[in-house]
């Protein structure tokens, strides 16, 4: 089970953003997407996750093995931490492994309504979802936003020792150093030129 991306081009708002992107991630490996703000990391990840169609190129990984975590982490403010996790577990037809609470330092907050969490606590809950749904291919968009150093380490450990160790795959867009020994891919060279083909506006150019 490998993630293969070949000469992928993606668009945003009718404009080509990234062109000719190719990479491959083996089971148990992670890939870190780098690049300045606005280069197209989010767009690429959304395309990989199947939320938007690629302009051209192929994305290849087994059906129903991927999960996506975005800037917004789908936490319901009026549900408790536990209720939030249980819901996602059920949607993916699984049970909540007791270990996640410890893994994301949510033990003390189990019964708390998510709306009353601090920014970082909320984020941790959003990430804990990944430990619950048991998907092998993760597309993570700036997962560590507003996490403190300790929590960042905690998350990196989760990825390394739990997810990747079990043969999972992760593609992560981030600006900070996660302390994962994973290859980094800078998107800057793949920035689409204004003259690049593709993008729904093309037909009018």
């Amino acid at each position, binding site marked *: 089970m490998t993630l293969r991306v070949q000469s992928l081009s993606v668009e945003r708002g009718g404009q080509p953003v990234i062109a000719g992107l190719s990479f491959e991630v083996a089971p148990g490996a992670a890939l870190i997407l780098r690049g300045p703000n606005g280069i197209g990391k989010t767009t690429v990840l959304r395309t990989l996750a199947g939320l938007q169609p690629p302009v051209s190129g192929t994305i290849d990984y087994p059906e129903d093995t991927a999960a996506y975590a975005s800037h917004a982490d789908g936490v319901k403010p009026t549900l408790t931490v536990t209720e939030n996790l249980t819901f996602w577990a059920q949607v993916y037809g699984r049970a909540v492994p007791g270990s996640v609470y410890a893994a994301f330092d949510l033990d*003390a*907050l189990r019964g708390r309504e998510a709306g009353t969490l601090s920014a970082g606590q909320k984020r941790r809950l959003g990430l804990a979802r990944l430990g619950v749904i048991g998907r092998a291919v993760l597309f993570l968009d700036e997962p560590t936003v507003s996490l403190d150093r300790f929590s960042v380490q905690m998350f990196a450990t989760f990825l390394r020792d739990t997810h990747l160790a079990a043969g999972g795959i992760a593609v992560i867009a981030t600006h900070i150093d996660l302390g994962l020994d994973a290859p980094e891919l800078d998107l800057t060279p793949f920035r689409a030129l204004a003259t690049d083909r593709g993008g729904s506006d093309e037909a009018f150019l």
Partner: protein
Amino acid sequence: MSIWEYANPKKFMATTAPVLPWLFALAALAMGVGLVWGFFLTPDDFRQGSTVKIIYLHVPSALMAINAWFMMLVASLIWLVRRHHVSALAARAAAPVGMVMTLIALFTGAVWGQPMWGTWWAWDPRLTSFLILLLFYLGYIALWEAIEDPDTAADLTSVLCIVGSVFAVLSRYAVNFWNQGLHQGASLSLDKEENVADVFYIPLLVCIAAFVLLFIALVIQRTHTEIRLRRIRALEGRAQHAGRVEA
């Protein structure tokens, strides 16, 4: 010591708890006396027949419905000015009671209107303004229910209660202007001429007294409940907080 000391939840609970059973007992007694007297020991009205006896439920509930809102208004003001939790919670506790009183007034009225006016409901100003009062109760309660943080809820509902009172009065005039009713005017007043005959009048007073007592008892009881809920919430919060501190 000032009376405000009783606004401390614990003190309030401590002082009112022993009184409560007596209040309920008294209310029950007065209710029994008033209703039995009113229903069985008074003659039928020459026009209305025995239907007149519904007045013993109808009028007291009607008066309480209005007074309950008034009490909520006062409590809200106290909360906004002096921020005593008890007054806020008392207002919250009174709302459902007041709403039920309104419903009773409307229902008994409807039951009364059937034989009297030949219809369950007529858009008579009196009745209409009570319907509006019901709407205000609904909104007030809904707002309490909708807001998580109790203090925020207390503040907002208080503001609503004050603004609402003004508009409630305004609506009363609007409604009067909009339709002149078949409902009879205030039948309880101090100078004797306007009053219904004593035979009806005295038991009616007893019933009103009973409703007042019942209302007070219920409100205190519910206030206790609200305070306890708040206390549970506080303790849970502290527990989690402690959990955080260890973590």
